[in-house]
Structures are given as structure tokens and as C-alpha cells.
């Protein structure tokens, strides 16, 4: 099927071709006949050999041979006769592999034979066959798979196989299969803490040396670069789970009301928390890697306030068997309390066996923070949505001098504990950066890309106080490389744009000085003070570092190139979101927004919803196709109302989970579809403003 030329070099000899075809047809018919009639004579078996010699892909013939073998071998008692019978089968495999070294049927037949364990394995013959085949094609993955099977079967220690990979790499640095096998063996040896492989640091230092040698010898070879990326990931992943952000943060003061005079005089000292009106307090915890096991005993709450019985922690990010970076709970205030009283709440996460990271470490970085809640019993009932919320277009936002949004430093609960391990990581990374800076990078995208990744890994280690200046410097250098890469490797432009977007978010939000320019407290007339962040027109493709935005109540991401809102689920305080004029291409892509409990205003106008028949988030969201939702349950109501479920299933799932007051959706292909507007208004009974018009 592969690699045959379209026009043959010489004219076909019709007669010979016919004869060849007839011979094959007869063989196939006869072998099938013998198979169905369970004829296992020497002659019959011989025919199957002839067939497999010509066509090793005739899988039924391999099945037939297994049956014939089983039938005949059970009559034998002499070990020599048995060995000879096995030998015959092994030879058939070898002949078949000569015809097609990638025949699944041939390789499996051999594996099956060895697994019968009828006769001792001729180690030399087996490894000899592999050596021969891997010399002809060092990338034959069937061969490598068989080699891994054989090594395990024969009890060959991983260290020995490691030497074999070194030999193959020594022959030719460009041997992805050998590098891959090396990564597997090393991982096993490290996990088992085999002799000589107890120290991760020692092993990875040596591997860095090895791969750097390969890369300097031949920078154009890809396999080294992929291996290097693996090593980099090993040295940059967090050693243990840590809390990196929370909402409310330490020292925050939440209030369900506000005093107008204080707003006017710039002396606001608390955050207006809308959920307090419903006596609900969300707490959001953000970790440096996905964890699970948050419950009433692993996260302790101390307060004079009584919260409802079952405190249930919910994973907000896409869960991975229950692991998530971001967790939230919604405390229900149960007791009666006097008006204008402040209550403190202390949240403590102690060392815990319950909380465990995806990489298997238990939580052992005790942390605690305290915030206060001010309950006001007189209900200042302000209809926030008396008029549609307008998005301010002006550059200079109304900013309240003294009253700043929560200082960013407080968002980071734990200061990065500089441990020995981290120092080693940082040293390794700096070494690599110096080395790669020396390589000429004008034509090699891999040099630039690797440098950018190394710089970003270093940036990630600079997380507080004065080291933030260094962080921004690393980001800037990485951004430079990413811009170059867009020109050097235009077919991967979008990949570099996504990286660039993430680095830009980091640079922008990592310290308050830069970030301040995008933040303000906004008050609309007759409204409440809301924390506002403006990120319009920055060519962002995605939202990164959401853990720094958990206090944001109004977010303007309009006029960017955003195609994904993953991360926004952490913004539990978000009331209004503007993602108009972006590249959102489906409702499924907006699923993270359905986790934001109090989202009321959403501007989706001028995106690409409904313009794409292929939905790239179809399997990332929860749907009946991935068995995350029962179709009958979810759509029962909709089918009763005669909504076209096959056409609008994604819109149905999205809108019914939101309690929006205001929605803008014009400028999307879907908005002009028949009945769509009726659908939306049916699904969102709370909707008051739709594309600027009042809904009645």
C-alpha cells in the first residue's frame, strides 16, 4: 500500500501477472479450506508456509498455524522433537519478516511461541535476529517492542539494555527509537532506585551532558532536541505540591454592602462580595500542580461563623481522575448574626496524607491565611442591571487613588522556599542557557526554541519580591526568541503565538507595577465598586496565570485573538466578562465559564461561533459523546419544547447552566440562525438585556 510508483517503469507482462495472481488465489482458498476442515497434515501446513512467504499479512494463516502447532505438539513427548517443532515455526517467522519486517502477524507469532514456554529460548538466536533487523532499520518499532518483551522475558537487567541504547546512539545520534528506549529504562531505574540510580540529580546531570554532546555534534537532528525537552521537564516539574494563590487572600475584607460616601472619598477598604447577599462565601485554592484530597479534615476552617454541615470541595479545572490545580468551596453562613459585625475566618492547610499530587507527593507545606467578612443586615437592594453594562473604551480608566486592588504580593501565600533541590535545578538551567547561547542559532529553530524554554523555566523559579525583575528579564529574552521563531518557522506560527501570549500574561501580571496600569476599581452610577482588569488589544490567544486574577470581578479581554478561555474557571468572583472581537469558535470552548457561579454579564459578540463545522473542543467539554453527560437527562426538557437537539446540543448545554442578566452575541454566525434567539431566551429566564435590547 505504501511507496509504489504510479506509473510502472516497464510494461506489465499480463500473462505472468495473471499466473502470479492465480497462484496466490489458489493458495488462499486451500489454506482457508484446511483451516475450516481442521486439516493439520504436513502437506497442509506446508501450504500455509508457502502462503505466508508471499503474503505475511494473511492473518488467518497465522491462526491456522497456531492451531496446527498445538494439535501436533501435544502428541510429542521428546524434548528434542518439541524443540524442532518450535524451531520450524520460528523459521517461518524469519522468512515472513524477510518479506515484511513490519508484519504484525509474524512478530506476534514469535512472541506467542516463546510464551508457550515449551522449550528453552535460544537467547543468541533471538537477540541476533533483532540485531540484524535493527541494523537494517534502526527505527523498526516492531523490533524494539519485541526487544523490550525479550529483555523482560529473559530477565535482562535494565542497565544492560541501557548500554545497548548507548551503542545505537553511538552509531548514529539520530536514533529516536534508541533515545526513547533510554528514557523508558532510566525512568524505571530511577523509580526502582536501582544501584547507581538513586540520585535523580546525578542521573539527569549525566544525561544532560550526553544529549548536549549529541546536539552540538549534529544540531539538525531532531531526536536529541526531543530528548532534551524531556530532561528539561524532569528538572522543572515541582517536587511537591504547594498552595500558590487563594481567594480571598490573606487580610482581605469582604463586605456585602458599601458606603457610598466611602466610595466617593476613595476610602474603600473592603471588597464588595456579591455572594454575601445570598450568605455564601466562596473560597478558592490554587496549587502549583494538580492535587486531590481536599476535604473537611485536610483543609481546616476556624471561625465564629457557622457554616452548613457538609463542606464540599469542588475541583474547578478539568479533572484528571479527580486531580485539579484549582479547588473551590462555597460556605453557606448558617447562623444568625448581628448587623455590621465583622467575623474572621481562618483557613489552614496542614501536612496531610489526604492531599496528594498527581506525581504522588503528599502535601507538606503548612500554610494558613485569614480573611474577614462583614455582614450587613439592611438590604441595600441595588439592581445592578437596571441599565445594560457598557464597556468602557477609553484608555484612562477611572481609578481610585488610595484604594488599590489587593496588592499582588498578598496573592502569593507561600514565599518560594529556596531549597537545595531548587538551587540544583536553577544551576542546571543556567548552565544549559550559557551553553546554548554559544550555538549559532540563525537557522536552527530548535536552538532558539530550547533557549526560550530554558529561559522560561528559569523565570518560573523567580517568584517573589525583587527577583521579579529578573523574572521579567527572562520573559523579555524569551519573547525575543519567540518573535524570531515566528519568522524562522512560519508553519508553526500559531504555536509560537500561544507561547508568546502566555509569556506576555506572565510579564504583565507578575508584579504590581506593570499590572497596576491594567487594574482599577470601577463604579458605575448607582452601582457597586467592582475590581476591573483591562486586557484589551494585546494579541492574547489565551488566558494564562489565572491564579493571579482570582480577585477580578470585571474582565475585559476584547479585541484579542483569544480562542480558549481555559483558566477562567478560577475567577469565581467574576461578574462581567467581555470576550467580544476574539476567535471563540464554539460553545463547547466556553465550558469553563459555566463554572463561574455568579457570572451575570457576558459579551460574546463578534466571535466565530457557528462558523466552524469542526468543533475542536467537542471532546474536551462534557458531552454525551464522551459519556460525561446522559443525553436523555440533559435534553429531555429541550426535546419537549421541540428544540433541535442535534443542531443545538452545545448551545443547550452552555446556556442552561448560566444565570445571565446580560448577553451579547451578535456578530457570530450562529446568531443569525433561525429560532436561535428564541432558544436563548427560553434557556435563560433571568436574561434582561440581549444584544443591547431589553427582554420582556
Amino acid at each position, binding site marked *: 500500500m505504501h511507496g509504489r510508483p*504510479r506509473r510502472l517503469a516497464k510494461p506489465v507482462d499480463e500473462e505472468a*501477472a495473471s499466473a502470479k495472481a492465480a497462484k496466490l488465489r489458489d493458495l488462499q482458498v486451500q489454506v482457508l479450506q484446511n483451516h475450516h476442515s481442521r486439516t493439520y497434515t504436513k502437506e497442509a501446513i506446508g501450504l500455509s508456509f508457502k502462503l505466508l512467504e508471499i503474503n505475511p499479512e494473511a492473518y488467518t494463516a497465522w491462526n491456522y498455524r497456531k492451531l496446527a502447532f498445538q494439535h501436533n505438539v501435544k502428541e510429542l513427548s521428546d524434548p528434542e522433537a518439541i524443540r524442532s517443532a518450535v524451531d520450524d515455526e520460528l523459521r517461518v517467522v524469519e522468512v515472513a519478516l524477510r518479506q515484511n519486517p513490519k508484519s*504484525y502477524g509474524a512478530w506476534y507469532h514469535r512472541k506467542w511461541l516463546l510464551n508457550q514456554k515449551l522449550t528453552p529460548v535460544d537467547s543468541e538466536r533471538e537477540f541476533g535476529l533483532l540485531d540484524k533487523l535493527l541494523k537494517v532499520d534502526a*527505527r523498526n*518499532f516492531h523490533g524494539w517492542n519485541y526487544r523490550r518483551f525479550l529483555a523482560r522475558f529473559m530477565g535482562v537487567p535494565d542497565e544492560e539494555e541501557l548500554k545497548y541504547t548507548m551503542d545505537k546512539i553511538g552509531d548514529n545520534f539520530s536514533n529516536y527509537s534508541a533515545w526513547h528506549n533510554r528514557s523508558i529504562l532510566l525512568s524505571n531505574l530511577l523509580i526502582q532506585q536501582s544501584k547507581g540510580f538513586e540520585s535523580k540529580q546525578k542521573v539527569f546531570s549525566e544525561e544532560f551532558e550526553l544529549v548536549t554532546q549529541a546536539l552540538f555534534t549534529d544540531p539538525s537532528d*531532531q531526536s536529541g532536541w526531543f530528548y532534551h525537552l*524531556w530532561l528539561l521537564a524532569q528538572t522543572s516539574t515541582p517536587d511537591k505540591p504547594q498552595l500558590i494563590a487563594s481567594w480571598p487572600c490573606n487580610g482581605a475584607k469582604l463586605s456585602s454592602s458599601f458606603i457610598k460616601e466611602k466610595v466617593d472619598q476613595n476610602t474603600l477598604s473592603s471588597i464588595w462580595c456579591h455572594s454575601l447577599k445570598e450568605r455564601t462565601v466562596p473560597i478558592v485554592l490554587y496549587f502549583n500542580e494538580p492535587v486531590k484530597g481536599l476535604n473537611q479534615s485536610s483543609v481546616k476552617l476556624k471561625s465564629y461563623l457557622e457554616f452548613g454541615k457538609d463542606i464540599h470541595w469542588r475541583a474547578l479545572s478539568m479533572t484528571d481522575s479527580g486531580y485539579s490545580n484549582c479547588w473551590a468551596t462555597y460556605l453557606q453562613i448558617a447562623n444568625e448574626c448581628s448587623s455590621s459585625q465583622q467575623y474572621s475566618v481562618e483557613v489552614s492547610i496542614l501536612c496531610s496524607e489526604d492531599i496528594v499530587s498527581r506525581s504522588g507527593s503528599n502535601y507538606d507545606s503548612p500554610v494558613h491565611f485569614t480573611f474577614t467578612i462583614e455582614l450587613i443586615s439592611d438590604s441595600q437592594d441595588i439592581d445592578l442591571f437596571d441599565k445594560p453594562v457598557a464597556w468602557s473604551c477609553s484608555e484612562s480608566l477611572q481609578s481610585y487613588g488610595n484604594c488599590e486592588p489587593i496588592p499582588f504580593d498578598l496573592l502569593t501565600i507561600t514565599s518560594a522556599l529556596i531549597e537545595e533541590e531548587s538551587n540544583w535545578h536553577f544551576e542546571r538551567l543556567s548552565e544549559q542557557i550559557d551553553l546554548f547561547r554559544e550555538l549559532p542559532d540563525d537557522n536552527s529553530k530548535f536552538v532558539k526554541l530550547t533557549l526560550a524554554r530554558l529561559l522560561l523555566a528559569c523565570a518560573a523559579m523567580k517568584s517573589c519580591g525583587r527577583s521579579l525583575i529578573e523574572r521579567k528579564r527572562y520573559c523579555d529574552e524569551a519573547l525575543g526568541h519567540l518573535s524570531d521563531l515566528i519568522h524562522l518557522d512560519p508553519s508553526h506560527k500559531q504555536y509560537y503565538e500561544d507561547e508568546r501570549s502566555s509569556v506576555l500574561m506572565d510579564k504583565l501580571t507578575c508584579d504590581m507595577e506593570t499590572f497596576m496600569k491594567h487594574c482599577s476599581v470601577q463604579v458605575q452610577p448607582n452601582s457597586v465598586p467592582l475590581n476591573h482588569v483591562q486586557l484589551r488589544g494585546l494579541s492574547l490567544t489565551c488566558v494564562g496565570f489565572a491564579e493571579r486574577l482570582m480577585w477580578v470581578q470585571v474582565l475585559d479581554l476584547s479585541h484579542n485573538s483569544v480562542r480558549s478561555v481555559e483558566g477562567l474557571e478560577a475567577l469565581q468572583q467574576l461578574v462581567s466578562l467581555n470576550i467580544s472581537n476574539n476567535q471563540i469558535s464554539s460553545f463547547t470552548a466556553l465550558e469553563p465559564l459555566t463554572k463561574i457561579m455568579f457570572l451575570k454579564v457576558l459579551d460574546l459578540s463578534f466571535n466565530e461561533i457557528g462558523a466552524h463545522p469542526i468543533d475542536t473542543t467537542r471532546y474536551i467539554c462534557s458531552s454525551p459523546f464522551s459519556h460525561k453527560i446522559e*443525553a436523555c437527562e440533559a435534553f429531555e426538557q429541550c426535546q419537549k419544547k421541540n428544540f433541535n437537539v442535534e443542531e443545538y446540543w452545545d448551545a443547550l448545554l452552555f446556556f442552561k447552566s448560566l444565570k445571565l442578566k446580560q448577553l451579547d452575541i451578535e456578530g457570530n454566525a450562529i446568531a443569525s440562525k433561525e429560532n436561535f434567539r428564541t432558544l436563548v431566551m427560553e434557556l435563560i429566564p433571568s436574561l434582561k438585556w440581549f444584544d443591547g435590547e431589553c427582554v420582556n
Partner: protein
Amino acid sequence: MAEEAELAADQHVRYIVTVEKKKDSFESLVMEHIRLNGAYWGLTTLDLLHKLHAVEAAEVVDWIMSCYHPESGGFGGNVGHDPHVLYTLSAVQVLCLFDRLDVLDVEKVADYVAGLQNEDGSFSGDIWGEVDTRFSYIALCTLSLLHRLHKIDVQKAVDFVVSCKNLDGGFGAMPGGESHAGQIFCCVGALAITGSLHHIDRDRLGWWLCERQCKDGGLNGRPEKLADVCYSWWVLSSLIMIDRVHWIDKKNLTKFILNCQDKENGGISDRPDNAVDIYHTYFGVAGLSLMEYPGVKPMDPAYALPLDVVNRIFLRK
């Protein structure tokens, strides 16, 4: 001035309809045992080009059932060939195209597939015990289309697939197996169908996959290999399922696929100017479908069937 390449849809339809009849050449005989796969490739392509009606549905369904083994519940690759999950999935998929799942003894077929799950969650291809993540995908896809996933231990099936995840973010045929675009499609598809895509590091895998795009615009299956039209499906569908397809250059890939056409006789080959076959014709058209090429029906990247077929199966009451 270079001519803008176009999809020669009519020629491809004619090619598919005629090649189906040619059974006696050596090339056809050598593939005789996978005729049922060929039926899936050819018929799905016809449906993608809005020409499924070019064949007689009843005839096709009858022939499919002649490959059925009532004792085991599985399908063979052709009449008289042993049952195997590879052909069982193709049979179920073709019956889905024609909305004729009613001809099946669904419980029997589902039991055949479910019975091949092993202790560690993996699946064997048939009674002889070969294990491969291809079979995990096939089992999950078949059982899902038949609404019988509950017959297996889904969590264990997922765990096995995840155990085949490699350090470059990709997946191999078995634990420790090298990453390969075909296996990656199977594993990503298996995780998609079971709502388990969060096990994947989408950025890392996405980058490995987008690096499959070669200078000629085509996609290869793993590093340092030549581009081949069939990877337009394996790589592209994987990228779509993990929402990273914007990382490749669609225009150049489209050009590559269109250059692999035999515009006179119909059919698409693995590389420009090579011999065409049904397999590459299907993957070329399927790749164009995933890139929203005009005139081609959109496909579901996980179930490898037209979108309207999959929506019908899961959303209709």
C-alpha cells in the same frame, strides 16, 4: 502560472465504485483479508463526498453480514476469514453509515468485544491474545457506538491506555512502546470517547504532533520520517481532539493532499506520483474534511465517522 489544486471528487467516487469490483489482481488478492476495512474506507469516503447512494445499501449490508461469525459474535476481514476486532469495528461503522445497526445481534457482538478485555484493562485483538492500544481504541469505539460500554471495566481500560503514555507526551502500542501517530490517534480517541482527555499533557503532545509537518506541507508519523497522506488523519484528528490543530499550517497540508491525487483516474496515493489505493483515498478526503474543505462533509475526529452519523447515534431519542 500554477493552477490552484482542487479536489477531483467525481473521479474519486468513480475510482471507489470501480475498484470495489476488481478482486482478481494480485494487489487485490494480497489485501483480500482486509476487504471489510476497505469497505469502511470506501463507503465512508463516498458519504463524505455526499455519494453514499452510489452503492446499493442492501447489497452492502448483506455482504457485511456474510463476514459475521455467529458462534463468536465477531467479524472476519472477508468471507471465511477468522473474527478479529479490527474488522468488527469496520462492520459496525459501516452499518452506522447506513443506519442499519438493527441487523446486528448487538448483545452478541458487544459480548465478543467485551470478552477480549484483559485483567490489566488492555484488549486482545482476538482469542490469540495480541495486545495493542489499537485494540483498546477499537473496543471502546465499537462498544460506545453500540451503547454497551457498561460491559467492560472502563476505568481499567483508561488506566491501561494511560500506562502507554510516553515521556514525549505521545503514546505507543503497549507500555514502553515508541510514540507513533497511529497509536497516538488510538489512545487519544480512546481517552476522548471515555471523557478522559485530561490525562494528556495537551501542550506537550500538541507540539510533538505539530512537528510532524514536513517542509513539503505533508505530515509524517514520527520524527525523521517521510510525509504520508494517511497521517493527515492520524495526526490531524489527534490535534483536533486536544484542541491544538491551529498549530499546523492547514493551507500547506491541503496542498500536499491535493497533490497526491490522481486527477485522471481518481484515487489518492501516499505521496505525490505514487500508486493510489482506497486506504489513502479515504485518509486524504478525511483529512480535508477535518480542515473544513468545501464540499466535504465534516467528520467526528474520535469515532472516525461523519458528524451527522455520530450526532444521530448519540442525540436522537
